[in-house]
């Protein structure tokens, strides 16, 4: 080692991460543009057989693709909103209501489902939703639901599974943000005559925007791109854009078209995120400013 500048040499430690990041993520993602022009499959032996613009034209003009995109983002927004509605009071209870010594334990408990494997979780929820499972049996016996019905293999099933999967992450990100809010500020707001609702809107909500944003990122993006849940728990009409992309690589074997679809999906997702960020910014300025 060069004894004169050991502190400068430390800089080179960045290379391994930088190279992996570049070669394994940034470059492949940019190359999606290139792969979108591939005609048919990109195989290990022959590489790209030919080039065509049909993939992109098809992806943009197809009504099916448009419908699936719309449904995927609709489901993603719905799941995110359900997660926020359920998680906000729960995270608040852990962060501010429960005695301090129980906080970390409760957070640990709520994270257990997320830490067990995602597919095991999907599987366990599906077992519950079967027509002779733990939930459906009493409902059927009591005559609340007509015999033989099952919620499994419907759109609702997909949404329930997704909410289950991502709720712990939402609780965690909201908690880590709500925990930092100073109780004295809330007390001050009460003293100054604000009611509970006013305090929430003017004091608590603006301070939790960063946690909300993290939660939205952690939940919305993977949900919009999910294909496992609709494939396993959904029926023939609960396909999402992820399922269509996946099928281009596993069954239809048209990788060029799959690349074009992924690209389109990425573009729409970036737009959605930009809109969400803008809305949050405006809300932040309106309320917090």
């Amino acid at each position, binding site marked *: 080692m060069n004894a004169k500048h050991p*502190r400068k040499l*430390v800089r080179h*430690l*960045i290379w391994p*991460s930088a190279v992996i*990041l570049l070669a*394994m*993520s940034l*470059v*492949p*993602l940019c190359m*999606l543009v290139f*792969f979108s022009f591939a005609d048919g499959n*990109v195989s*290990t032996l022959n*590489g*790209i057989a030919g080039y065509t613009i049909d993939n992109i034209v098809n992806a943009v003009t197809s009504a099916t693709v448009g419908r699936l995109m719309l449904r995927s983002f609709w489901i993603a927004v719905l799941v995110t909103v359900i997660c926020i509605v*359920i*998680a906000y*009071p*729960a995270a*608040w*209870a852990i962060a501010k209501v*429960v005695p301090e010594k129980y906080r*970390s*334990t*409760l957070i*640990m408990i*709520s*994270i*257990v489902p997320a830490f*067990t494997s995602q*597919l*095991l979780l*999907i*599987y*366990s*929820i599906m*077992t*519950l939703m079967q027509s*002779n499972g*733990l939930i459906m049996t009493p409902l059927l016996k009591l005559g609340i639901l007509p015999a033989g019905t099952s919620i499994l293999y419907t759109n609702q099933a997909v949404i329930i599974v997704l909410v*289950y999967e991502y709720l712990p*992450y939402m609780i*965690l990100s909201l908690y*880590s*943000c709500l925990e930092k809010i100073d109780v004295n500020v809330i007390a001050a707001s009460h003293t100054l005559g604000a009611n*509970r609702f006013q305090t929430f809107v003017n004091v608590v909500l603006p301070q939790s925007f*960063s946690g909300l944003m*993290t939660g939205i*990122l952690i939940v919305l993006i993977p949900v919009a*791109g999910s*294909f496992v849940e609709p*494939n396993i728990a959904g029926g023939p009409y609960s396909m999402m854009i*992820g399922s269509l*992309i996946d099928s281009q690589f596993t069954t239809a074997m048209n*990788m060029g078209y799959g*690349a074009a679809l*992924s690209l389109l*999906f990425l573009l729409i997702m970036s737009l959605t995120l930009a809109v969400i960020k803008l809305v949050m910014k405006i809300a932040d300025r309106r309320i917090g400013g």
Partner: protein
Amino acid sequence: MKKRKKGARGFNSVMIVWLCATLFILLFPIFAIILMSFNTSKYGALPFEFTLKWYKQLFQSADLLSATGYSLWFSILVSTSAAVLGIMASMALRRMSRKWNKAFPTLMNVPVIIPWLVQAVALLLLFNLLGIGKSFASLYFGCLVAVMPHSFLITYSRIMTMDKYPEEAGRTLGATSMRIFLDITLPMVFPAVLSGWLMSFVLCFNCFSIQYYLAPFGTYTLPMLIYTMIRAGYNPDINAIATILTIVIAIVIFIMNKIGFDVGQLVGQGHKEK
């Protein structure tokens, strides 16, 4: 004044009830699976009859066990690599210009924001073009690039905010750079590295989409095997492996809680600049 206090108590109990309900709903499927792993009926149907035959089947068939073993050691390998890379990059960034310190974490956020399906698809296309295709190296680098940012961002934000005086003191007293790193810096960032490691471990264990696309033919990680099993029909020994895994994870989390590990660190720090 008294009225407000009463109102606050009512409000707080509503919040507590909400929390309990949420936790109950969250944990219910897991408890149900544990119960069902001891139930005779193949399809988790009632009435309940106690049995251990699914555990026997699990340990005899060995399919699920070997997949679990593979997933475990593979995740340990990937998350350890990610932790080492994270420390290296964070140490380097401390000595670099502000421009780098702004650009690098932003770039690191790209794999976080890209859905795993798209990341996996892009990597598969690249590896196919290069003639490598699905292989262990593809799987390793695919999972590594997906989890590395989480490990890096947690370690990085700790290293940037920590107290620099102990290191300066060490340097003044004539300690070598290596000595300072091992005796001062590493112990100080260790909790963050551990959180990052844990986060990467969980993510790597779970990154089904990437494993599904990049794992070499004939290799099954646990999520891949469960996916195939669920699509083929119900196998009750999944209940048994789920029970064992859940209990192991609960114990690990319990121990980490006891040694003062704050799980709240896992989220939030990494996304600070947003």
